[in-house]
């Protein structure tokens, strides 16, 4: 029996995927678990695996082509089996058969023997007739929705929720974009065309959507504090001297660790806003914004509050490398409870970061600079760093955020406080 190969959701937020490379060709024998193709998701390049043994047929998507999740891209058939004629390659007629269509096109199949080809069709999307109609009218692909009705059936409520956050749904007829050239930091050229249109890459699309669901709907407010990093710098120097070749502790590691520890004392900031409830996390998973070619991603350091500094440093390094080579697995960039964005290395004094929903807060870390500071009535040069916290006001109130920031500041100004 034939098995349809679909574009699968290889990341939790993936809505479409670009077929980077076919590992198997039309007519190749494939086995369950073998890699059929490499697919670029919104986050990384992932393997699409075979879910049946057989021969790969009807490869409908070319390398470089982008198709929505759920789209049929090939079929795996038994040796010698032919695929029933008249099978559409797309999902037209399966997405939202209207009642009228059901009448107009009675199945020509004999009553008691369902044709084999019909079995090859994947299970249709479960949706109420009303939902199908609304989806058809508004051009929403039902496959991209999570059904909240009985048995995961898509009902009107799901379409209304989807309509309320347009970024989360993508029309089934979304244009299939050709492979975009990797947008490199090209210097402006005075010759040639006055501008260049560069199609959005998968990751850029996701960034656009994710951020639009943040700064728009999430009521942000910002708190800034300046931290004296003198003692943190001394502690870091001492630790690194002692570590020698065994590793290095960076300021970023110290900030991640201090943030995680401060969150354990301020659970109110370690939370997710979830429409009808707030989820206060008892575990601390720190998202760490990493700049990658053409975008950013926030890999997660899990349970950062209980991990030693050196381990945080090692993990942060590994995750950043994986992020840059686009090999992060979904579990490595999901589930953070709070995030840290550090632009200190770019000589940014102070900035505000956009919250990564559903998290309720993020801190933006500036560079450490020497400044004249009055200490005990004397002006002294001190290394100072500015931290700006963005808070979701639906979860965190001013004083709540300030309390957390104060603890964080105390920990950084007196690193021994981390031992308390």
């Amino acid at each position: 029996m034939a098995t349809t190969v679909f574009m699968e959701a290889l990341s939790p937020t993936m809505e479409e995927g670009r077929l980077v490379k076919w590992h198997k060709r039309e007519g190749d024998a494939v086995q369950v678990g073998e890699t059929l193709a490499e697919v670029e998701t919104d986050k990384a390049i992932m393997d699409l695996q075979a879910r049946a043994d057989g021969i790969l047929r009807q490869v409908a998507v070319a390398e470089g082509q982008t198709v929505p999740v759920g789209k049929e891209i090939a079929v795996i058939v038994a040796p010698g089996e032919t695929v029933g004629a008249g099978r559409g390659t797309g999902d037209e007629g399966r997405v939202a058969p209207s009642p009228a269509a059901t009448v107009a096109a009675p199945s020509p199949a004999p009553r008691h023997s369902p044709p084999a080809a019909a079995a090859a069709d994947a299970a249709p999307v479960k949706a109420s007739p009303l939902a199908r109609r609304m989806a058809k009218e508004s051009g929403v692909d039902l496959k991209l929705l999570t059904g909240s009705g009985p048995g995961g059936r898509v009902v009107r409520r799901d379409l209304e929720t989807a309509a309320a956050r347009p970024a989360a749904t993508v029309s089934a007829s979304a244009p299939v974009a050709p492979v975009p050239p990797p947008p490199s930091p090209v210097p402006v050229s005075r010759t040639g065309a006055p501008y260049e249109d560069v199609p959005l890459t998968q990751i850029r699309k996701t960034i656009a959507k994710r951020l639009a669901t943040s700064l728009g709907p999430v009521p942000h407010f910002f708190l800034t504090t300046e931290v004296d990093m003198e003692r943190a710098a001394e502690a870091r120097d001492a630790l690194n001297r002692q570590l020698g070749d065994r590793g290095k502790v960076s300021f970023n590691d110290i900030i991640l660790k201090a943030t995680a520890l401060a969150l354990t004392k301020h659970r109110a900031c370690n939370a997710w806003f979830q429409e009808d409830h707030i989820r206060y996390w008892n575990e601390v998973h720190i998202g760490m914004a990493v700049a990658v070619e053409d975008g950013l991603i926030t890999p997660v350091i899990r349970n950062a509050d209980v991990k030693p500094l050196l381990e945080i440093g090692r993990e942060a390094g590994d995750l950043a490398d994986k992020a840059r080579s686009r090999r992060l697995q979904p579990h490595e960039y999901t589930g953070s409870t709070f995030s840290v964005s550090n632009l200190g290395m770019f000589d940014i004094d102070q900035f505000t970061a956009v919250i990564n929903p559903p998290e309720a807060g993020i801190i933006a870390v500036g560079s450490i600079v020497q400044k004249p500071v009055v200490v005990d009535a004397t002006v002294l040069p001190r290394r100072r760093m500015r931290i700006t916290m963005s808070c979701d006001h639906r979860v965190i109130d001013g004083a709540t955020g300030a309390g957390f920031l104060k603890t964080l500041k105390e920990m950084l100004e007196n690193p021994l406080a981390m031992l308390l």
Partner: protein
Amino acid sequence: MPNQFDVIILGGGPAGYVAAIRAAQLGLATALVEKEKLGGVCVNIGCIPTKALLHSAYIARLLREAKEFGIEAGAVKTDYGVAMQRSRRVSDQNSKGVEFLMKKNKVTVVKGTGVLQPGKKVKVGSDSYEARKAVIVATGSRVKGLPQIGLEINKTTVISSDEALFLEQAPASMAVVGAGAVGMEFADIFHAFGTKVTLIEVLPRILPLEDAEASDALTKSYKKRGIEVLAGAKVTKANVGKDRVALDVEANGAKQKVEAAVVLMAAGRAVNTENIGLKEAGVQLNDRGFIKVDQNLQTTTPGVYAIGDVAGPPMLAHKGFREGVVVAEQVAGRRPHPIKYDNVPSVTYCHPEVASIGLTEDQCKERKLDYVVGRFPFSANGRARGTGETEGFVKIIRDKKYGEILGAHIVGSPASELIHELAVARENEYTVEEVELAIHAHPTMSEAVAEAALDSLGRAIHM
């Protein structure tokens, strides 16, 4: 601790006994506290005995019209006392049925009045009981009079349904105050048993919560058979005598006197929230007097739930049934499907019956919805002509764009049975097209449902 249960339920009416059965099915040790007979108002002094009496009324009317069908039954004699005795037997059977279900499901029934104590404890008399998981309050409601105008229920000349159900004979005349479901049904019953009935409703039309077309149809039907219908009529004063009551009624600016041997109060119900320890246990009431509950039907005291009439309107047994199931499942750690309160059918079992679900046309107008109405009268239905039950219609209001069934209203002898096709349709989000596509057997009165759906699409066949 012999008096420990997982769940203790106060009240053995529809909401309570169903919660008990479902909780027991899910393996919870369950106790049900009831001071009277199991089954509550519904089984003993509500839904069930009135349906028995309404059927007696129906037979009386049928026999009076039988000649036309070729049957001579002679002079039809009615005896309310006999009908009442039969209705009592039906109630007792049903109450025994609930008793049997409790035994079958190993629910411990405690006789007495349960009083909540802090900490999921319940006192019944001098015995203490403790719930490990939850206490469910399902104490229901009772009839209430209008003492502010002198219409306090005295159980002789001013009565409620509680007394009407036990009368040995039909009174010569009766004023029914309130033309909701209860008033409509008793007006129907007593009229069939020879009582001169005056139906008084303070709101502008009888069955004020139903679609205006349903109210109109019933007004016509009642007037035609000789029931006096006064809508938009306010009782301003009542003179309660020993065997007569004189009411001053003001309708449309005009004053009139209504005299009757008996006044039946059918104007609203009061919930049973007194003397069951709610306050002491921290269970708050809302500003309308119902127990305050969240979307999971939990009260302001964690672990204490309220279901049925005490938890708020609509005060209908089937709404209580569902709440009982949902709370029991929640307590057992399941995740039940949330209740769609906008999809609770409402039925009045007078003749012709009135059944509805969803919005009325007036509500659609108020909400500025873009809708289309489809209608089909039973006078155009073959089966209805055959049985002579041609009164009434099916009316379906659909959303103009998507065909969603916004509301459905049926007036007709089998309305209470026909409405469920539309309840299923709405629950599953079928549009009028799916309703019409389902093949309806011919000849049936159900065909009118499909035809009304078709009519909303502008293509009714038999009209």
